[in-house]
């Protein structure tokens, strides 16, 4: 991933969020307060706008996302996603490009940011249930000698599974926790938006792969 890929990823994700706003709203209405779709759409639309005039490097692109989310999203997801991208931006300092071997550390930084900010551990039915398993998955896939696209495809797959698996969990953090047992049977909206994030990354890289072949 270099800054071009990162920008394409963020732009694509902004489009995805705008398309899936209603889905996220619906999930959040069931066990939260129904604003996750609007929150994410507001934040990522702003990211898209900011990116138009952006000319910096890889780390800066992540910093831009972090700052924009923190200042535009609000709610629980604003500081949480904001922290993720902030930590990733730090981890990317000085790098112009990363490959499959760097992903595990990058994700580790993001996941730890959520854990600290959100005082959350696994199994509490939050976005952290997705983030927390990704570093190790990246590590293992890289060790198997797979390329970045394969690795990211694997991440997207796992993120999807983990997001879907939150459905059967009982929430103990975030707004859904107020529902107790009644939160079971509904997917966590933050976990879903995370799954969409990695799916956008996968399709961005896949397109780029296609484009590279054509060249």
């Amino acid at each position, binding site marked *: 991933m270099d800054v071009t890929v990162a920008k394409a990823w963020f732009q694509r994700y902004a489009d995805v969020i705008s398309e899936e706003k209603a889905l996220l709203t619906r999930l959040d209405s069931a066990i939260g307060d129904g*604003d996750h779709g609007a*929150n994410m759409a507001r934040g990522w639309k702003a990211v898209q706008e900011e990116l138009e005039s952006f000319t910096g490097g890889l780390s800066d692109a992540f910093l831009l996302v972090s700052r924009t989310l923190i200042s535009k999203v*609000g709610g629980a997801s*604003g500081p949480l996603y904001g922290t993720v991208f902030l930590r990733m931006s730090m981890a990317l300092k000085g790098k112009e490009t990363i490959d499959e071997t760097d992903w595990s550390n990058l994700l580790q930084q993001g996941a730890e940011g959520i854990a600290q900010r959100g005082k959350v551990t696994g199994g509490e039915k939050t976005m952290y249930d997705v983030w927390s398993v990704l570093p190790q998955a990246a590590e293992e896939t890289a060790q198997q000698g797979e390329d970045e696209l394969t690795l990211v495809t694997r991440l997207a797959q796992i993120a999807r599974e983990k997001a879907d698996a939150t459905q059967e969990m009982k929430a103990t953090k975030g707004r859904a926790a107020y529902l107790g047992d009644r939160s079971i049977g509904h997917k966590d909206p933050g976990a879903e938006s995370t799954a969409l994030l990695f799916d956008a990354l996968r399709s961005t890289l896949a397109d780029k792969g296609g484009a590279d072949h054509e060249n």
Partner: protein
Amino acid sequence: MKKVMNQPEHIVSQMLDGMAQAYPERLRLLEETGVLVRRDAPVNGKVGLVSGGGSGHEPAHGGYVGKGMLDAAVAGEVFTSPTPDQILKAIQAVDSGEGVLCIVKNYTGDVLNFEMAAELAAAEGIQVEQVIVHDDVAVEDSTHTTGRRGIAGTVLVHKIAGAKAEQGASLKEVKEVVEETVSRVRSMGVALEPCTLPEAGQPSFTLGTDEIELGIGIHGEPGVARTEQLPAEALVKRLSGKVIGDLPFERGDRVAVLVNGMGSTPLMELHVVHRELIEILSENGLTPVQAWVGEYMTSLDMAGFSITLLKLNKELEQLLLSESDTPAFRV
């Protein structure tokens, strides 16, 4: 869904415009921030008080800005905590050098955003303290979970904090009395009908024609139990039973009472609730010292109400009844 609005994305900023225009002698709106501040902020020699949260709870929080209450209210998008940038602007605007206390309702989003703002303010050399209100007895209180929500009791916390700060107390002293208040305030609500977010356009949950939802939160998030509709007497008994049964109330206590409408329950019904509540208080040997009955912490157009009791002591009673002059709360 029928709402009186223009584009739903603009409802919060247009609401804030309208509010600032309605109370020009009391309030001023910081441009592009969603922050309403006391016209005369920062008040020299006074600790600054900042609160806020998602919009949709009007008159909270802007209605509580003014002499004897808050110095600034930060309005997030509908049901969405404000961002650290917004909160920082509020902190900066009200700090007179005596420091700023943020009064935060216990929701992950509010807590995280206020925390980040406090870090940013501290980096600028502003003293910032934070108190978290968690008065909702409907939610289980456990250190392993998110804990209890902050709901309508927060308004009484604002009042007491404001009165103390107005006396010229230090940040530490204000924080102490606010923490004492938080430990003594309990609330619980019920929804008769759900609310509809302007952008979502659909009710946030559905209730059968004879169903009500007990222990509802102020973000329209579903409550803790559903039951068939109950007469006012039984309903108030059920809610107040949980409130009174919780920690701090004993026979002989003097209490402040807040009967809060959720948005579309008429004042007529709130007064019926108040009547039932007064009867129950007297059965429990509790003396109501002062009551507020009306809309103080709403949930958009939700139907329903909440009951708040605050166990007073001499100082709290005196602070609660001392003068305040804000758009929505005057003593």
